[in-house]
């Protein structure tokens, strides 16, 4: 009952001698997927046998642009479920509390509220690094993002554990976002 990434099928190649690198992409919803994406995912998904990808990714992360540039220029590939996320100040206190409750049950085992990387990245500064819609999709459409969004794939390459889909409802994800904003010092 080993967990298999959803939407992916590993297939033994009949032509190639080495089959381990043969990945069949089976995502009818996005035919425009690039070869680079496929290779990246291959590296991430087969990390147990791949070498050096982690170090390279870390090096790449060090040379990354500033957070402001990132958030402005990030290309996002997400599903159709969440299209717009409105944010405003002051924060909704009830949402912050609701988001905290969700965090305690479904997020805390892997994410700390400071910058510490545990299983996944620490949440400090996440709302400065990512657009709200990216965060919402990462929570609600996790498998889609991990298979199609470049930034999400970079995270998978770093963490090597696929972020689980914790079946968070969209309205609860919005509360989590509010809690993250509060955690980042917004009022």
């Amino acid at each position, binding site marked *: *009952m080993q967990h298999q990434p959803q939407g992916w099928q590993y297939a033994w190649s009949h032509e190639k001698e080495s089959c381990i690198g043969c990945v069949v992409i089976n995502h009818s919803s996005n035919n425009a997927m690039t070869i680079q994406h496929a290779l990246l995912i291959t590296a991430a998904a087969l990390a147990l046998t791949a070498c050096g990808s982690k170090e390279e990714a870390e090096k790449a992360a060090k040379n990354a642009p500033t957070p402001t540039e990132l958030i402005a220029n990030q290309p996002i590939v997400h599903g159709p479920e969440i299209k717009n996320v409105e944010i405003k100040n002051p924060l909704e206190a009830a949402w912050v509390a609701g988001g905290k409750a969700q965090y305690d049950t479904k997020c805390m*085992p892997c994410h700390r509220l400071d910058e510490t990387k545990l299983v996944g990245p620490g949440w400090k500064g996440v709302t400065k690094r990512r657009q709200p819609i990216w965060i919402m999709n990462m929570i609600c459409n996790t498998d889609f993002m991990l298979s199609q969004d470049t930034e999400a794939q970079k995270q998978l390459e770093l963490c090597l*554990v696929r972020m689980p889909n*914790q079946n968070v409802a969209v309205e609860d994800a919005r509360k989590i976002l509010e809690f993250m904003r509060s955690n980042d010092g917004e009022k």
Partner: protein
Amino acid sequence: MIMKPSPTNTRFALCCALALSGAVTFTGCKPQNLVATAQTGGAAEKVYVPPGKHDEFYNIVSGGFSGNVSVYGLPSGRLFRQIPVFSQFPECGWGYTEETKPMLNTSHGQLPWDDSHHITLSMTKGEHDGRWAFVNSNNTPRVARISLKTFRTEEIIELPNSAGNHSSPFLTENTEYSVAGTRFAVPYADEGANPDVPINTYKGNFKSTISFIKIDPQSGRMSVAFQVMLPGIDVDLARGGKGKSRDWFFFSCYNSEQAHTLLEVNASAKDKDLITCVNWKKCEDYVKAGKGRKSKVKYAHNVYDEGTHSASSTIENEVTVLDPKELKDIVYFMPCPKSPHGCDTDPTGSYIVGSGKLAAVIPVFSFDKVQKAIADKTYDGDYEGIPVLKYEAVLHGEVKKPGLGPLHTEFDDKGFAYTSFFVSSEIVKWDPKTLQVVDRIPTYYSVGHLCVPGGPTTKPHGKYVIAYNKITKDRYLPTGPELTQSAQLIDISGEKMKMLLDFPTVGEPHYAEAIPASLVEPNATKFFKIEENKHPQVTKSEKDARVERNGNQVHVYMTAIRSHFAPDNIEGVQQGDDVFFHVTNLEQDWDVPHGFVIKGSKAAELLIMPGETQTLKWTADRVGVVPFYCTDFCSALHQEMQGYMRVSPQGSTTPVKFSVGDTGAAH
């Protein structure tokens, strides 16, 4: 993989289909395999389900002496799961975890094993509704209900005043009742009678019973509504009426000789035995009118609650008994040639097919004629005070020379009947109206039960008949004296039956039903919602993970998520402590179970589904540091999912301490 059937392409496709289904080795496509392919005449294509595609039917198969139930796909014959029911199953901790132990409780205490027999699937208006599967245990009489959403056993009820629950758990047309008839007549301690009697006083002292278990139409919860007390006789199999006969239930009975030794000879002496016709509607009315007698008994009723992820067992102490000698119109016997086994009703409810396993004919009874014979009192005497209807008066006709040793009959969607023949090893197709045999096919070997998808319902799905064989012999690679059990898939879509596939089964497959996947698949539970987890020891957040001492009991409230336990470092446990690991899986996605086990566990592992809590009891039997780990490969870092428990000597001052992610080193 689908190609136009040009000669070369067909050859290629068949070879590949065979290779992929594992029928030949990877060096396949040798000439001898082509010969085999030619012999099967396209069979491989008919059973080939390409990788990633789903089967058309679920086949819910009795696990026989495994005590459990297996789930297969048809037409591929692939095994998906074993559902633990009456036997402990260490693979998922069934009967070992604190939550599931009560499911195996009986009036005899907790039993680790039983003998599963027949499957029956719930029906609404006589048609499959895809809600529950029922299965009976033969040794210590019980009936279990399995949810077809979770594919888990939700309830087990023991039968009082019963021995050898064989003619069970067949259902009435709307799942109002499941039945349970006794294969072994015994003396009962009922009404203060002394059951300590000589065995040779069978005649007079031994009784049989048929129990009707009420099924709640919403929850499925079972309760023994009433029992019909019968003279000592072996009640063998049963089927409910349908349509016009829906108020009746029919039970085959052998040993009308009332033999108690060497039954092989002594219970085969008479020319005819009996089919018992029970009007359950009338029984229901009598119970409502207070006609039943309350019998003091003791039986266990075990329920698994999906909300608390825990089972409870209650001992019940009363059952209502109806006596057909007093209540004259609830039971009638029909004579049936020589030791009937199967007793099956056709989809219209017009015919009752008896299968005298030592007879040279298949008698088919007419429900209309049964009604007329009862109205006209066309009796052929009585059997211990219960009227016996005249054979000729109730008979629709006999299928002449059908084969040797008829056992069971199922029906297809085109009006044909299929009867299994144990002695002559074949399935015979015949027409219930004309009683003519239209086709026969050999089985390998000695078929017992058989199954047509929807065969016992008012609306058979047809397409296949599956033979569940009693003897496997040379059909597979040998594995010493003990062999796999075997089933065979046969195509019945055409005029002639065609053998398609052999597939091995777990335990002797006593009976099975097949149901279209479309009635079950959409309802399958994918995970348990953590918000709805009402387990008394649930830990819903890692921040609540903790260790508590209570006397010499230590309770660990642990969470599991890819890929760590919290806490994963535990100290302050002492030798002799009973440690209860209450592990909650915090995952909320499909197919992410976590396992848990600790060195020296005398139970089995825990296998905890997402959102579920399960408890392993472990006794600290020695001083030291003991590892625990996740047993189900959960992520790339599964191998890192481990922890330590420190066990100190009894009376040690080491305080209870627990943590996760605390890397501070001590010297």
